[in-house]
Structure formats: C-alpha cells, structure tokens
C-alpha cells in the first residue's frame, strides 16, 4: 500500500520486520490500478474516483468495466513518499479549514493543483504517475462524514457527475432489532438499483449482470481467504506483522487490481502464513516479547518506526476492525445479485452488533477491540489518535477504558496523523514505548491473577 516499492529491496531484507514474500505481489496490484487508470484516461475511457465504500460500489463499477482509483489510498502514497505538504497547502489556500481530514485535504489540494494550476493535467510532482482526471466521483455514507462531504467538495474542481452511496449506521441496541436486516437490505437494494440505472445512463451501456455475479463470488472468496489469514494470525508467535497487512489490504478492502489475480495472491499468502504458523516463525526477526494490536490508521509517513519497535520484540499481531473484511455471510440462498451485494456490505457494519449487545457494550466498535484483545492475546494496544480523523479517533478513549477495565490490557496513547508528519514524534514515542513495556509486564501479572490466559 503506502510503503510502495515494486519489489523487495535488499535493505528491506535486513529489516527487523520479517516480511511475507506473498505480500509484495498484492502490494503491487494497487500500483497497477493507478497505471491502468492513467492509460484508460489517455485512451479517453471513463475513470472513477471513489471513496472506500465497503464493496457496494466497487463491484458494480468493476462489472461495468470502469477503472477506479481511491483518493483515500492515494493520500497514503502522498504521505509515505513525503509529497503531501504542497497539496495540503493548496487545500488551505483554497479556503478549506486546516482541521479537516488529512486525506481529504491532500486530494482536494491535488485537485486544486490539477484543475486550477495545471489546466487539467496531472501535477508533475504527483507520485506513481498521479491520479487521472475523474469522469465520475463516487462518495459514500459509510464510516465517516468526510466520505461524502469531501467528495461533494471535489465537485468544486471537476465537472464530473457525483453519486453518494448510502449505508445505514446506528447504535448497538437499535442495530439488533429483529426486523432490521430485511428493512435495511430492501433500502440498500433500492439504492443499488438507482445507482446502476445512473451508471447505465452515464456510460450508455447496460450492466453486465453475469460479470457482477462473478465478481461477487470472487469477493466472497477473497474475504473468506483473508478471514482465514486473520484467524491464523492468532498464533504465537504472531506470523504476520501489521506492516504486511497494511501493504496487502487494498485488494481486499477495495478490490484493487484484478480480483481473480488477487484471490490467487491471497491464497499464496494464506499458504505462507500457514507455513509460518507450523514452523513458529514470527512476523519479526527477534523473539516476540510483546503482542501489540494497532489502532487505528498508521503514520504512513513514518512506517520505519515499526522496525525500531520490532527490534525491541514488539510484534504488531493485528489491527483494528475497520480494515478487515469480516467472514462473508452465507449468500447461497440469495438469488438476486443486488441483494447479495447489499448483504455483503451491510455485514461489514452489523456483524458485530449482536455480540456487542450480548456483552453489554454500547459501542460496537469497542466490542471489536475487546474481541481482538481476547482472541489475539494482546499485551497492549498502540492507540494512534489522529489529529485530522474523527472517525478513527473518536471512540479510542472508550476503547482504552474498556480494554483496561474489563481485560487489563493497557494502551500506549500516541497522538499523530495519517498525513501530517509534524505531529508524530518518534523519539518521544520510543521513550514512552520503553516505559510502556513495564506497564505491559505489570498487566500480564494482573491478567493471570484474574484468571485470564495471557
């Protein structure tokens, strides 16, 4: 994803993190998407800028043969290549408040540069060849307000038509009403019908329903495979470091690249992780001393920092919920492809609600933290509240409280940002991490005393 080199370099082989070989081809798929989209644009074919939409939009777009890029993902590239600042400045100069989402600001700045300063051409400083000018802007109402307001704001620079996908979202107790699922699915199916009618009108061609069915099946297989990889990551020592997850998540999170190819690569990854588990090979090259879960989005601009922690035996064994596809629901009895799609997407949001309710946790997101801590036997959480991301940061204090109070799992609280590297202080963080090791040791004893098994 963001630490985007095409192939494993010699320097990486020396890193304290023991990277999976199967990660690299998956990582390259997203780079291929940028190139394919540029080529399509050069050939006069339509291209899409989309927000992560948890599959309800990705698959219809792909079935219509559209090339898609995700500005949210491109922003991680801007951050990790140190290219974000001029685009942030451009956003500021056009009047967007500086406290907004760093992803949003950087791609608003990119759009400003492209349309107001470059006459519609890609800014020459854009990494990976840049994002081609969009002919459709697809926002999404899922997860955060920025996902649709940011895309509406992009309409300031492009005359491309816009669409906003809907997705229900609510609290645990309302989200478990007995008749809720059918009512939500009906809503989503109607929205998808309207979206597809819009696409057909825009492109002047009909939806390829057979292709859509095929892609839904591939999506289910991809998610089933990634789910199995996630299950294997519970092993001790943890076989796969978070860095490998972040690098390989785009083909699962938004189906970057060709999906049949991605499925093959994930199957390779599953085999490699399985082998590591059998041989007790860890995701770091030192002995695993601490099993850490990362929340939420990492500092893309400072990923090398994880090597420093790996040298101290910190193995980042898993990451928070929002980037993992859950095990797909059973769709075998569903015949309508749009209903399949609605259920697949909806499952991402609502699969945790019943467990949260049973556990007496009001916030389903908090329940995911508890579940992950238990299942992955976390010694600690690395909490990374982001100065510019409300969605990823708002619930972290509550998660921190519940983790400590219910499970005696402590958290290291490190403020930072996904884009703005100035707010992340690696020296200070390292000093605090060293002190946090004592905290983790202490709570290990407390957990044992309380009858917990890790």
């Amino acid at each position: 994803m963001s630490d985007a080199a095409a192939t494993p370099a010699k320097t990486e082989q020396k890193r304290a993190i023991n990277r999976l070989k199967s990660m690299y081809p998956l990582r390259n798929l997203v780079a291929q998407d940028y190139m394919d989209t540029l080529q399509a644009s050069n050939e006069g074919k339509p291209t899409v800028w989309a927000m992560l939409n948890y599959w309800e939009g990705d698959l219809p777009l792909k079935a219509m043969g559209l090339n898609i890029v995700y500005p949210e993902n491109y922003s991680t590239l801007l951050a990790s290549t140190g290219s974000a600042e001029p685009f942030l400045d451009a956003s500021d100069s056009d009047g967007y408040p500086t406290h907004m989402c760093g992803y949003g600001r950087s791609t608003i700045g990119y759009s400003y540069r492209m349309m107001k300063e470059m006459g519609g051409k890609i800014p020459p400083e854009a990494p990976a060849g840049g994002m081609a000018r969009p002919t459709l802007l697809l926002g999404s109402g899922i997860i955060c307000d920025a996902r649709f307001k940011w895309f509406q704001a992009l309409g300031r620079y492009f005359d491309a038509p816009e669409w906003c996908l809907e997705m229900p979202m609510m609290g645990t107790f309302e989200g478990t009403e007995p008749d809720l699922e059918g009512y939500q699915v009906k809503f989503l199916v109607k929205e998808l019908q309207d979206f597809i009618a819009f696409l057909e009108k825009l492109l002047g061609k009909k939806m390829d329903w057979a292709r859509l069915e095929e892609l839904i099946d591939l999506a289910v297989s991809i998610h089933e495979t990634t789910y199995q990889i996630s299950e294997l990551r519970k092993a001790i020592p943890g076989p796969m470091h978070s860095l490998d997850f972040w690098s390989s998540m785009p083909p699962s999170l938004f189906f970057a690249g060709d999906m049949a190819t991605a499925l093959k690569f994930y199957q390779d990854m599953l085999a490699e992780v399985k082998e590591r588990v059998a041989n007790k090979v860890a995701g770091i090259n030192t002995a695993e001393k601490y099993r850490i879960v990362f929340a939420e989005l990492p500092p893309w601009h400072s990923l090398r920092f994880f090597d420093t922690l790996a040298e101290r035996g910190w193995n980042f064994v898993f990451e928070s919920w929002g980037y993992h596809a859950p095990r797909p629901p059973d769709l075998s009895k569903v015949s309508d492809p749009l209903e399949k799609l609605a259920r697949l997407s909806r499952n991402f949001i609502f699969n945790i609600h019943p467990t949260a309710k049973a556990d007496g946790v009001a916030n389903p997101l908090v329940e995911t933290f508890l579940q992950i801590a238990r299942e992955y036997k976390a010694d600690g959480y690395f909490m990374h509240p982001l100065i510019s991301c409300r969605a990823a940061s708002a619930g972290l204090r509550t998660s921190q409280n519940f983790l400590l109070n219910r499970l005696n799992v402590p958290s290291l609280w490190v403020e930072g940002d996904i884009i703005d590297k100035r707010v992340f202080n690696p020296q200070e963080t390292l000093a605090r991490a060293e002190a946090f090791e004592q905290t983790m040791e202490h709570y290990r004893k407390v957990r044992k005393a309380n009858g917990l098994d890790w």
Partner: protein
Amino acid sequence: MVTAVTKGLSLAKEVYQDRGKRVRELRKAGKKIIGYVCLYPPVEIITAMGLIPFRVFGDMNETITAADQVSTTVVCPFLRSIIDLGIKGKFNFLDGIVGAHTCDIGAGLIIQWRDYVKDAAFTHLIDVPHTDHAASVDYFSGQLNSFKRHLEEFTGQKLTDDKLAKAVEQHNRQRQLVRQLYDLRKPDPPLLSSSENLEVLVALFSLPVDEGNELLENVIEEVKNCVNKQVSKKARLLVWGPVFDNTSLYELIESAGASVVVDDTCVGTRAFWADVRPPYDLQSLAQRYLVDIKCPRTYRQSEPAETARSYDKDLESRFNYIRKAVTDWKVNGAILQSVKYCDTHGYEVPNLRHYLDTLGIPSLYIEHDYSERSLAPIKTRVEAFVETLG
C-alpha cells in the same frame, strides 16, 4: 408559565439563563422530560407521547474536564461539552435522551451516553440517511417508526394519528411564529437584536411547545408595540454555521458595528423554516426532517441522477434558500462561523463563500472551540470585516 408576572423578552431571558428551571418544575409535577441532540429527532413524536422535548446544548463557560476521560480532543467541542455536562450530572432532570446520526460524532454521543451517563432511563439513536434520495426518505420513515415503537414501550402509551396530528399542528404553529419573529428584523433598524432573538429561540428549546408558543406571541406583541432601541447600522449580516446557542458571538458582532438580521444556523432558521406538510404522518415527518431541513449534513444535488453536472447549478440547488434570505433581509455581508472539527460544515465553507461571491455578498470565515474565551481573538477580524462593508 414560569412566573405569573414575567413574560415576553424578560421571560425569554430568564429561561435562557436557567434552561433547566421550568422542566425541573414540570418533572416534579409528574411530567417526563426527553432530551434531544441536534435538529433531527422529531419533537412532534415526543410531544405527541405526552413527553416534554428539551433540546440539549453544551455550556461555553464550563471547562471540559470529565469528557477528556472518555473522548479525544479532536472531535466537536460542542458535543464534547454535552457529554462532559452529562457525566457531571448536569442533565439529571432528563428521563431520556434521543440522538440522531446527523453526524458521526453526534451519533457517537448517544452511544457514549449509554456507557458513561447513567441518569437517563431511555436512550435512542435514530439513523439518518446521508442523501435525500426517495429510498432514503422511506428508510428514514422506518427509523421514525422504530423510535415511535421504542417510546411506546417506554411510556406504555400508543401514539395515535390524532395525537401526532395535534402535536404537528402545535410545532408548525411555533415555526410560523418564529418566522414572524424573524420578520421583525427585516426593517432598518431591526426591531430586536440578534441576542434577544437567540434568547427567545433557546427558551423555545427549553419549554413545552404550548408554553413556547405563548412566549412567542407575547414577544412579538411586545416588540411590535415598544419603542425600538435598535439603531441603524451599515452592516446587515447573515450568520451561518452549526450550533451556536450562546449570545456571546452575536454580542461580539453587534458590538463591532453590525446588525445580525438573519442566520442559517441550527439554533435559528434551520430549526424553524420548514413545516411538516399534511397528512402529518411519519412519512411527512421524514420528508420534513430529511429533505426540507437544509443542513450541510445531508448530501444534496440539483438532480441526484444527472449525468452532466454543473458546479454553479449544484451550488444554486444547495444554497438558493440563502439567496432568498439575502434578498428578504437586505443582507450585505455574511459571517460563516463553525465550531472546530465540524466536518460537515467545514467542507462547505469555500463553496458557500463562492456562492455568496456570486451574490455580491462579502463573507468572513471564523472558527472557535465552543468557548467564550475562543471568541476574543476573533473580535479584531470581525471589526475589520465590518469596516470593509462601509
């Protein structure tokens, strides 16, 4: 009413200064008080169930302390203030609280309430779709039905069509009276100040609807019949933005030599401009709240399915109600204010400023952190802006 002798603007000020006083009295008399956050929980349903809706605000003068234990500092300070007050027990007169997914943090507030504020027996979160698509209105109507069912369980009463229709009429009457109140600021000089106007509105959010309507009738009569203390000022401003429930900003602007004659905020016109249209059922409420309230939290387009889009046409469809306000209130400048970390309003700012430019209306954007102390540095900028309107 609160006292036999106090009415009109004096009563509004009294309620504004102690918002919980009247509902505490009513609670002692056996009424149940349901707090609600933001504009989207339909007050008509609460009233129709025989409950008293009480809009929950924060406190700009209370330092946030307890909320720091449960939320990060990079989220809306208005909502942080509310949860802070909740944890401190300052809403202990509420029997319940209702929120809506008007923004992510707003929805999260109700969820946090369940974890950290134990006073309220009833909590409910209404999901609000992001678009005004036809399917979204139907979905939202279903959400209102869930809310209705939950309140029926809570009260043991059924919500009949007649009760709902009567409550809609009462609240529509209030909206009509508020529009009359705003008409009083159309003349030059306006007949009341923006601070007085806000005190009345905040009072309305703190009283049962029938008492609020009586207050409004008295205020309108009082203002029409008293000697106008306002003076003509060269700047007639529109103030835009999310919640602002404290007179301090208006006092700051008016002390800079301007009159705020109209607003587009969720304590002001947004709350009162749209009526519920017949037949006064849940679908009518869904239409009013999701489609007719013009808040940036909803994604609007000139034509949702249009395949050729024009930015200017898009802006016109999103902001044309502001054009009308500019004309009707003879506005010659606009102040866009926002609480920090408000995404739904923040993304709107350059686009709205562009639209105002096309109307020939200069604008100023200011940000604050929902504390009175954060307004002080803004004063110089406001004064300079007002000066340019001369």
